[in-house]
């Protein structure tokens, strides 16, 4: 059994020093070693997108990266989205537009949309659907997720203009 490695992770602006086996996925390291259980695991092979987090501000599957690979990179999880008690515009929009029911897939969708909107704040509906097609939701039928992302993008653009 290969030894554990000491890894320093920068997650949501905080530093976490953990000791993990190389085979441990970034998702498991975040949940079990950093105690950040907002990142959910569905399929564990890159299909469902529930574990999507931002690594160096890009949305990636945390089940398809090993925790040791995140050394030297910045990670953002759903816990880092809100500003204190103030919800991120995406979180607010999901809430107001019924963009979730059971909520299991929601952290992944939020981080996916947050990363994609950083790359392109002016996504068309087709762009939004293309991006969101990468994550699975079994409750909503997706329409309200698309709507929430569309409205959040509008809100974020309006704030950026102020």
């Amino acid at each position, binding site marked *: *059994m*290969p030894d554990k*490695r000491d890894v320093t992770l920068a997650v949501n602006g905080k530093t976490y020093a953990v000791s993990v*086996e*190389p*085979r*441990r*996925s970034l998702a*498991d390291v975040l949940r079990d070693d950093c105690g950040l259980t907002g990142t959910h695991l569905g*399929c*564990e*092979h*890159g299909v469902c*997108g529930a574990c*999507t987090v931002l690594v160096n501000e*890009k*949305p*990636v*599957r945390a*089940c*398809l*990266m*090993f925790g*040791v*690979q995140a050394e030297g990179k910045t990670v953002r999880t759903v816990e880092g989205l809100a500003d204190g008690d103030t919800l991120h515009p995406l979180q607010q929009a999901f809430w107001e537009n019924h963009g979730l029911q059971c909520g299991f897939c929601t952290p992944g969708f939020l981080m*996916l949309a947050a*990363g*994609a909107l950083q790359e392109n704040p002016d996504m068309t509906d087709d762009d939004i659907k*293309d*991006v969101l*097609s*990468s994550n699975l939701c079994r409750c909503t039928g997706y329409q309200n997720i698309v709507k929430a992302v569309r409205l959040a993008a509008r809100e974020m653009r309006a704030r950026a203009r102020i």
Partner: protein
Amino acid sequence: MKAAAFDYLRPADLGEALALLATHKDDCKILAGGQSLVPAMNFRLARPAILVDINDLNELDYLRADADHLKIGALTRHAAFHRPVVEGPLGTLLAKVVRYIAHYPIRQRGTFAGSLSHADPASEWCLVAATLRAEMLAKSVRGERVIAAGDFFHGTFTTALEPDEVLAEIRLPAMAPDWRVGFYEFSRRAGDFALGMAVAAARVEEGTIREARLGVGGVADRAIRLGTLEDQLVGKPASSALIDGIAREARGMIEPNGDIHASPEYRRDLIATSVKRALTEALA
């Protein structure tokens, strides 16, 4: 659904990486984007003893265009192609094709060279490389060699790369501005593996096809360049009758594989449809 134990090595530069590959050969696998390797490890279909993580090798993260080639370094991610990386038809084609590769987050990690090294029969980049006659630059401690696309792909998940080699660079031939390109892919859902796809490119002068490129993927153990059909296109006026004839011929030339997703007969129809739609786009 957790990977088996492995030893993790993270070289700082290419020289160090090549030395590790030379030492560990078949015991190690290169970890680049990991978007195919890690799922296989999570399923324990792959159990490499050692992973050599090349993600710190910034020297391999580049796109360079000169008069003859677009050179793609081994760490270039799929997402780099979301916007055209070169002016003209080649950049247009790559930006069109990249949208069909898995999904947005996968494209942020997965690499062009990783797709080619993995050699999945349904890989869009493998089809592009085979059809456009790419050259692969393989490096090892023994030196470097250039492998033509026609010699590179040996079959499902199998390439000409030796265990101590890394695919360091892919060279796609430059395309003059008067080339026109087309791509068509069919899959059940957005982001799924292609059940059939085709790439077409043509240079047309005054209504007559002067040069052509045509290939199909997702239907056999590797992407297939249809060289004889390219020859048949050259010298002829572009017309829908010509396209229909070429699509019919392509349908009969390939013995497609069958699996749970599509029967050989269904794939034969997809070959004809994909070729027709890709060619129609290129010759429009």
